[in-house]
């Protein structure tokens, strides 16, 4: 594969384009509402109407308005049909001839679309994720070719550093710095890992990227492999994403066939392989050290850091581990330049961020906005606010590691620092909107239950602490708790946050802490009054357990 071949494929693909294109969303959301049947029906209808020469029916990735699926976009008319049933196919086809139809049309000029800046998702909904040619026609693999032919590895690292890209998995570690650290290690073997173990409740950004544009993630990984000097990459993807896995496998096979993956990538001396590792459903395996243990075939449990994966990671070798979205940002940075990327976003948070908008909101779906976009624009302007009659009460970001941002702080710009200041985190991009009917104590309880169930059980504060935290929250919820229980809750949050081994435990109290901070009254109004006849012993501060009532009668005095 050389540049000429790439251009040939692109030109052949563009020449294949027909007068009309019906882009059918075949991401998991639309497939779950008969999207595949809609595409098949359209295919049949096109054949039946003898329009095969004029109309192309293309299966594509996510068209964003996930709540209105199945979605079909029509080119070049620029129309988006929503809630299409297979029997609507002939009627939809007739609109191409200018006939009117009662089919439900989405408004592509609505704020939901107008405020988006597709960068990671620029191909999503346009290219056919099952055909590499479709990706090449959108200038796919051009960045990889330019990197291999025109840039030395340190130049690639420096381009990423200059772009200001930060890890999209949630913590926001500078990507360039991570790449540079791995590249500088003195090892002959290094690894690249793509973390696709997206597990936050309500989050589906990585899934959409993998299902819509798998080649882009591969390209980002290969560029990373070249930059840090790795020859082997792994994609750790959860088994709950069968469609993403299937499309990735297909993409890897196609890329290998074209010489874009394997030995001698783009006929250069650089070799790179990518293998898929399927996670068996443990949330904690999204934590990098647990993920690597799982890839190695061991029990998916985190280990203390340092050593960090960049020094000693997979199989003890330096390992670069980035999130799906981080890798997907790499090709445009190379193609359009780091300065262009750095011009998007805020001072400290560059580029865009994909969010999965869900919960009590008018428009549910996938959005990509520049960093620094105020929350209000996302949930009220783009998402349309709470459903009829409702009022937004809070926005939850960052999943079980994040927090609830109250409506009074909706003008906060969405960037790493601002969200951290509010006791939440950017997280991987799940955004759950809550309205006035949402019980914040119950929200905290739900996330604590999640953390309790997903704790790996290695360290004591996370394993046993989340159990007690959940019990205390349930007790408060059942109006059986007193002020002492609330004190214990706060004391335990402090313990679990500061003594847990990995990020899961260290952030598990965040939903409780943030709801306590902004919705404390919801906790207080549930508390039982203190006991009318207090026991004779005066209450002792929490730091000094009373000497009364030994529960451990066998202990030596």
């Amino acid at each position, binding site marked *: 594969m050389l540049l000429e071949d790439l251009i040939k494929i692109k030109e052949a693909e563009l020449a294949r384009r027909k007068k009309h294109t019906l882009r059918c969303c075949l991401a998991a959301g639309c497939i779950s509402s008969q999207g595949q049947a809609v595409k098949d029906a359209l295919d049949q209808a096109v054949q039946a109407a003898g329009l095969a020469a004029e109309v192309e029916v293309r299966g594509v990735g996510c068209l964003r308005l996930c709540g209105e699926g199945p979605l079909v976009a029509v080119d070049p008319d620029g129309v988006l049909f929503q809630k299409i049933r297979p029997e609507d196919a002939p009627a939809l086809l007739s609109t191409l001839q200018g006939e009117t139809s009662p089919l439900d049309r989405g408004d592509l000029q609505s704020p939901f679309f107008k405020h988006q800046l597709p960068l990671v998702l620029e191909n999503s909904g346009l290219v056919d994720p099952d055909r590499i040619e479709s990706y090449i026609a959108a200038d796919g693999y051009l960045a990889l070719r330019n990197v291999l032919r025109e840039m030395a590895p340190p130049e690639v690292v420096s381009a990423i550093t200059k772009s200001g890209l930060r890890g999209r998995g949630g913590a926001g570690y500078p990507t360039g710095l991570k790449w540079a650290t791995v590249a500088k290690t003195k090892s002959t073997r290094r690894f690249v890992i793509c973390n696709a173990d997206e597990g936050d409740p309500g989050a589906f950004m990585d899934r959409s990227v993998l299902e819509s544009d798998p080649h882009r993630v591969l390209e980002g990984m290969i560029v990373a492999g070249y930059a840090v000097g790795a020859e082997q990459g792994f994609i750790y993807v959860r088994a709950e994403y069968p469609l993403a896995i299937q499309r990735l496998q297909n993409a890897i096979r196609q890329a290998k066939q074209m010489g874009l993956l394997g030995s001698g990538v783009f006929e250069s001396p650089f070799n790179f392989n990518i293998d898929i590792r399927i996670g068996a459903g443990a949330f904690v395996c999204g934590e990098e050290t647990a993920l690597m243990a799982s890839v190695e075939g061991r029990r998916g449990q985190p*280990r203390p850091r340092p050593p960090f994966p960049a020094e000693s990671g997979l199989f003890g070798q330096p390992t670069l581990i980035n999130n799906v979205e981080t890798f997907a940002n790499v090709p445009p940075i190379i193609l359009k330049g780091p300065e262009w990327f750095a011009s998007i976003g805020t001072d400290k948070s560059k580029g865009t961020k994909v969010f999965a908008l869900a919960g009590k909101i008018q428009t549910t779906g996938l959005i990509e906005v520049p960093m620094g976009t105020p929350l209000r624009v996302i949930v009220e302007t783009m998402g349309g606010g709470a459903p009829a009659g409702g009022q937004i009460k809070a926005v939850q970001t960052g999943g079980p590691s994040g927090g609830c941002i109250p409506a009074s702080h909706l003008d906060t710009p969405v960037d790493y620092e601002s969200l951290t200041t509010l006791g939440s985190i950017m997280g991987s991009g799940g955004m759950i909107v809550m309205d006035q009917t949402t019980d914040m104590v119950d929200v905290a309880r739900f996330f604590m239950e999640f953390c309790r169930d997903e704790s*790996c*059980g290695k360290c004591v504060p996370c394993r046993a602490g989340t159990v007690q935290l959940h019990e205390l929250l349930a007790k408060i919820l059942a109006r059986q708790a007193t002020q002492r229980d609330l004190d*214990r809750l706060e*004391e335990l949050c402090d313990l679990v946050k500061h003594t847990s081994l990995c990020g899961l435990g260290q952030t598990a109290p965040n939903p409780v802490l943030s709801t306590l901070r902004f919705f404390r009254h919801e906790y207080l109004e549930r508390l039982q009054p203190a006991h009318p006849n207090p026991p004779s012993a005066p209450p002792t501060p929490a730091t000094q357990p009373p000497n009364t009532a030994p529960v451990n009668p066998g202990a030596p005095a």
Partner: protein
Amino acid sequence: MAAKTLTIDGQLVSAEENQTLLEAARDAQIPIPTLCHLDGVMDVGACRMCLVEIVGTPKLLPACVTKVQEGLEVRTNSERLQRYRRLLLELLFAERNHVCAVCVSNGHCELQDLATQHGMDHVRYAYQAPNLGVDLSHRLYGLDHNRCVLCTRCVRVCWYIEGAGTLNLAGRGTGSMIITDLNQPWADSDTCTACGKCVQACPTGALFYKGATVAEMERDRQKLEYIVTAREKKQWNV
């Protein structure tokens, strides 16, 4: 090997380059409480009892896996750390059924000792009182899951000292359990060599010699140390 000088609890301590904070502190007779640590096997930093404060570092670090560095200023016994340790012990006591009065290890139990040392004489959290069962199938040893603190010392000695690989962990979170082979009764294990190292390693009464009754279960840690010294220092200390 380069020597490093650091301060632990205000005391100047010199340590060898690759030593952990725990080793350096113990060499200097500064006690740091531990539960999952066992001399001779790989540390996992799981029990969080040995967390220490390092001036200039926001996070607490486990002394058992943190290497010494020149000029570190370490605090091992601040009021905050003492409080955290007491809370961790409370959590452990509430998690399973640690009833000393009827335990084979009463009086010889590391968990009990830690509780005494830290003044943890009261558990304010809800007892989970699980009914996890006891594996008494092995001809020599018993495994009472209800007294297990999941420190994995037994798993590590089984894998890294004996090399049998019989014991392991199954499940996750608070439902984690020590299992033998593929979660089958201990007696059916094809890999167990009945060496008893796991029993020697256990800090509580979870692993015991069959026939031991209340407070009778005493361990001889020197047996493990003997093997580890032989292996690592090539010395047979008779």
